[in-house]
């Protein structure tokens, strides 16, 4: 995998093991008829001339049946536009989107047999109707006889802890419950592919945890294919198989959560030693990327970015200097840090995503300086 600590810096973004292309380049290497979702060269620009805003640029990826993909990106990265373009709610300028092999733009009715979406959190259903009435209505407009699927609706409500509120008007429910009602109404039509845009937006920790558990269970039990857009990294880590990170309309990362986090192994050690004088520290600083050096009660504590090989070289060097090892901790990054790192170091994204990515990859060697300066690729061009 490109970007792992043991590989040289290429500036490439991690790719999924299924060789999904991150950006264009002939589209995903997955049979469009086999994929649950197949997106190839999708592009959308709003307005024109000086006012033009490129929301989605040459996006390609595939999602296999039963896969759960997290969609991350700072505000304005193009996530919602991409989702709506895939669903045909926004007309893309270029590219195609298929759901279970059916082109959504050429044959929308066939495609909509399989797919539905929760687009704006708690909105998307009728607050004046009861929970059950919402489910029955949305099942009917998706081609289901509400009476015939009544048992399935009852089970769905049971699983989502909504059974007791089935005959309560949605407007009388809490925000968390409203979110779950929308989710239930999306699933009421027995779709096999669902897009969930910010499903945990505005939820408290407990409600978010519950919803995550339910999403995981529903995916496992029903074999749903999910694309889940969220700013909540914990949701993505918990629920998703794979993560697509967007910045400025482009896919900058497409990889498994596991690989994504593994790529940050390099950042990770906080070491405490005894017997280190300034000369020793100078030598170590010269050879390794030591940061946050501090003296505590006669001991020296520092952090170091190092992969496994670098770590062993460091311990060899410490042994050669006769240092007494007092403690070693790994500093474990989470997805939020990976995300911030890849999208340019600030929550709003912006220029520098690719440059920082290169910096991160370069830093994986442990001794190379972090890249800095202006963005080096199109991912960092201001628009």
């Amino acid at each position, binding site marked *: 995998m490109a970007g792992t600590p043991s590989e040289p810096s290429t500036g490439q973004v991690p790719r999924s093991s299924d060789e999904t292309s991150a950006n264009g380049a002939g589209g995903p290497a997955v049979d469009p008829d086999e994929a649950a979702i197949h997106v190839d060269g999708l592009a959308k620009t709003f307005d024109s001339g000086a006012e033009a805003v490129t929301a989605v640029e040459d996006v390609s990826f595939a999602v296999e049946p039963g896969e759960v993909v997290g969609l991350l990106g700072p505000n304005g990265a193009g996530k919602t536009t991409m989702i709506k373009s895939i669903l045909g709610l926004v007309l893309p300028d270029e590219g195609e989107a298929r759901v279970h092999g059916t082109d959504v733009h050429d044959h929308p009715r066939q495609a909509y047999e399989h*797919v*539905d979406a929760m687009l704006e959190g708690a909105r998307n259903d009728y607050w004046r109707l009861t929970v059950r009435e919402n489910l029955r209505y949305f099942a009917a407009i998706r081609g289901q006889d509400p009476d015939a699927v009544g048992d399935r609706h009852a089970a769905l409500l049971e699983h989502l802890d909504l059974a007791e509120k089935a005959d309560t008007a949605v407007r009388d429910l809490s925000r968390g419950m409203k979110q779950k009602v929308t989710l239930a109404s999306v699933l009421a039509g027995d779709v096999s592919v669902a897009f969930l845009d910010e499903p945990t937006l505005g939820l408290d920790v407990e409600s978010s945890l519950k919803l995550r558990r339910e999403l995981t269970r529903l995916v496992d039990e029903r074999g749903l294919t999910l694309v889940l857009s969220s700013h909540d990294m914990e949701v993505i880590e918990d629920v998703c198989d794979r993560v697509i990170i967007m910045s400025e309309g482009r896919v900058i990362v497409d990889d498994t959560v596991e690989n994504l986090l593994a790529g940050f192994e390099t950042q990770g050690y906080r070491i405490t030693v005894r017997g280190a004088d300034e000369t020793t520290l100078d030598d170590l600083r010269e050879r390794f990327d030591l940061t946050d050096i501090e003296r505590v009660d006669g001991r020296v504590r520092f952090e170091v970015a190092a992969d496994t090989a670098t770590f062993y070289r460091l311990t060899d060097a410490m042994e050669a200097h006769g240092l007494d090892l007092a403690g070693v901790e790994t500093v474990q990054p989470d997805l939020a840090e990976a995300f911030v790192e890849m999208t340019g170091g600030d929550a709003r994204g912006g220029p520098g995503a690719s440059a920082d990515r290169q910096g991160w990859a370069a830093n994986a060697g442990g001794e190379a300086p972090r890249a800095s300066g202006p963005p080096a690729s199109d991912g960092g061009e201001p628009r």
Partner: protein
Amino acid sequence: MTTAEGPDRGESRDPGSAAGRGQGRGPGSVAPPRTERTGGYYHLLKAVVYRDLLVWVRYPLNAALGLFMGVFFFALMFYGGTLVAGQAFSDSIEGLIVGYFLWTLSLGAYQGVMSDIQSEASWGTLERHYMTPFGFGPVVFAKAIAIVFRTFLTSTVILAVMLLMTGTTLELNLVTVLPVATLTIVGALGLGLVMGGLSVLYKRISNAANLLQFAFIGLISAPVFDLWWARFLPLAQGSAMLQRAMRDGVRLWEFDPLTLGVLVGTALLYVGAGYAVFGLTTRRARRLGVLGDY
């Protein structure tokens, strides 16, 4: 940052959480569930009509005020007119009742479809109606039927109160009145689709939309017998036919074929044009990415 003991953080990770859920199950290991459809157009129409009525009664004040104001304005005209014009006004009361009935019907259809589209956009449900296996067209058509059905219910209540209030009797041959009134307000539905489509695109068009309501009065009272072209205007031909059916007892089959042809033709023309404009505006809204905005 979080910390974990031990030099190899990879070993200390919980694969079921931080590494994502893909390790245990893996994508592609589950066959895609087949979506089996158990319903059809009947269930679609039934659900849309039921939902429309439910939402209407769940805003009880709005529903009650709508009915009350319908009766109140007629009462103002009736008692005011009787006071001012006396017997002369009473002689023309049948025409006023039929015209007012048609005005409430057409206004209900026009406003109903327009406000329904606007409300769906603001509730975030419009886009979900777009994503159905039936297609947006049939769903919007089902909504139009639901609105016409509800409008007939409310306007019939107002008609009954008007007849009671004035002590008037009218010919209410349903075989004649129902199709003529329906075809008449189909034209108003077309105008509602135009304004609904424009509201999807431009969001705030209330000034133009409200003005058009008053134009309905002129269309309903258009002199189709004096100006040949006036019968091709929306509502005009149907209004004239409804007057003859309800006041003079003319049956549907007693109208000449040309008159019936103009009624059907104008209804189809205006609803077709309205749907075409609605299709164009929603397509434009999709291109601009504003379909679900409000």
